[in-house]
């Protein structure tokens, strides 16, 4: 480093520490080595997780896995997760049907109407704070308001629990995306005489379409892998869903789903059950990672707008 400024009236500063260049270079090298080692270790472990799931899961993937229902007899070597896959799709779709419209409109409110007003700020505050709530608590909440009073488990209760998790995420991302749309677009739309709602829906959302779809997809993906909220709400079932009502229906009884079935299979000492669980784990992982990649590729913005 350059020497201390040499003016006669220089204030008394502490003398410069004599630090050898080699010492500093050595420290730098050590840190770089640690960086590489640490990074490779971290990445290796993640790769290991993916590898394990792939290997064990692929072994379980056969035609039966995708077409047959959960075996009743744990000793059987047939059976699959078909009904659980469909069940998860139905439950997640139900959650999306609830959360995406409401979350989107809430985001519209926060970005377009409420803005920095008192109501909007309180909504934002409450939402941000509750967004990180553990999903088991949401499951308990859904049990208390939907399962216990109505006296039956239901896939709908599971959807409500998942929707609760999706709502804040959906509102937040919608607000963020809409805020990024330049004001000029709004002004020009309004200047044409279009009503406010039309400008918002047709002009702004069209412009922000990529981000909005990404946000909705990420919200869905986030809850697709959740187990805890479904433990006391949708429970599980070894059968196909039989309709909307009745003890095998979406609103009336327990509904099969992937995550609970994986949980059951993973705790089972029977090899075939464990294999099914691995197959399910791989499926969920592929599904989630696949959707992530898809939205990134299709709507290449990602974080930058």
């Amino acid at each position, binding site marked *: 480093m350059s020497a201390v400024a040499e003016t006669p009236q220089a204030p008394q500063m502490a003398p410069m520490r004599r630090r050898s260049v080699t010492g500093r270079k050595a420290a730098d090298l050590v840190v770089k080595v640690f960086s590489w080692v640490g990074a490779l270790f971290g990445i290796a472990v993640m790769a290991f997780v993916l590898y394990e799931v792939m290997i064990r899961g692929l072994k379980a993937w056969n035609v039966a896995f995708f077409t047959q229902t959960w075996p009743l007899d744990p000793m059987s070597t047939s059976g699959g997760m078909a009904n659980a896959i469909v069940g998860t799709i139905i439950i997640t779709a139900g959650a999306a049907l609830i959360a995406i419209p409401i979350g989107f409109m809430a985001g519209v409110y926060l970005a377009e109407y409420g803005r920095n007003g008192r109501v909007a700020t309180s909504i934002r505050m409450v939402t941000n704070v509750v967004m990180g709530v553990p999903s088991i*608590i949401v499951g308990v909440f859904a049990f208390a308001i939907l399962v216990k009073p109505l006296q039956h488990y239901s896939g709908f209760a599971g959807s409500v629990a998942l929707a609760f998790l999706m709502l804040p995420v959906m509102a937040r991302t919608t607000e963020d995306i809409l805020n990024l749309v330049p004001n000029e677009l709004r002004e020009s739309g*309004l200047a044409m*005489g279009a009503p406010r709602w039309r400008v918002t829906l047709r002009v702004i959302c069209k412009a922000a379409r990529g981000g909005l779809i990404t946000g909705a997809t990420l919200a869905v993906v986030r809850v697709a892998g959740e*187990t805890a909220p479904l433990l006391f709400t949708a429970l599980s079932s070894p059968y196909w869903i039989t309709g909307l009502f009745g003890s095998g229906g979406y609103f009336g009884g327990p509904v099969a789903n992937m995550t609970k079935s994986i949980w059951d299979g993973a705790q089972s000492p029977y090899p075939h059950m464990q294999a099914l669980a691995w197959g399910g784990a791989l499926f969920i992982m592929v599904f989630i990672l696949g959707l992530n990649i898809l939205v990134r590729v299709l709507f290449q913005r990602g974080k930058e707008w």
Partner: protein
Amino acid sequence: MSTVDIDIPPQAGAPRGSASAEPRGHRLRLGDPIFRGLATASGVFLAVAMVGLGVVLVIDSWPAITGLGTKMLTTVAWSPSTGEYGALAALVGTFLSTIVAMIIAVPLALVIALLLVELVHPKVARVVGTVIEMLASIPSIVFGMVGIFTIVPFMQDHVVPWVLSTPLGKVPGIEPGPNYAGGGVSVFTAGVVLAFMVLPFITAVSRDVMKMVPQVTKEAGYGLGSTTWEVMRKISLRYANSGIVGAIFIGFGRALGETMAVAFLIGSVFTALPHSVFDPGTSIASLIALTFSEATDKLQISALIELGLILFVLTIVFQIAAQAWLRRVQRVTGGRA
């Protein structure tokens, strides 16, 4: 149904959000008020639902709060048959496993972030960065499965016996307590798996925050002859400090609430405190998950919901702390974390 009114009255350029944003027209325009009403209703519904969660939790845990008082937080006896509910073991287990997770995850995350920001080609950094972000979406249950089938036997047969054979094995907190069960299923194993669950998130945020450090400042440092590590330490980390701390808080909050992976790996010992990280224990979330559906006694149900409320409050506290730190980032760097 309103239509676009082509005769343009002088309303062009009305500012957003103002009441006069509606174009004047002689037709009854219901679209806007309905839309605005729906939007407002949704926003209010969102807040009401969130608050409602807290309210329901408080109401349903009230019998336990009044019936058990502080015993919930200070005693270890969890015994439904005698009506004693002391969740100290769950609290200790939750914090211990989360602390282990952060001790492992934070240095790793910082080091990976450093690598991505400074040490590798930007293209590689982008690919690796995307991979890490996607890894953040792997469900908890998958981690739990890999944990129970591969990491638990590995810990039990190799890692823990090795650690205990070194002088480290005598350190209090590592030396096994009376409930030691071999170390495979333990607070430590749960912490290790938790670490890799929060690692992607902390890495991603750290990397983003470090990338926001103005290039000019870093170049100034390099220009004066600093090494990469010195620039990182004295410049980048100083700038990114608040953001990283915010990310750590959020990661901590998430790890606190992790349920499924921990339930697999921590041992489900509700009635004894872990004396060491290699002892089995339990966590609040896994205790609730495993025993909620069999609670018949009103006090037991209420006690479990009170535990949920405690977890809820803890998570909120960490969220608020994280938000506060992250707002400091905005002030310092003028952007969003």
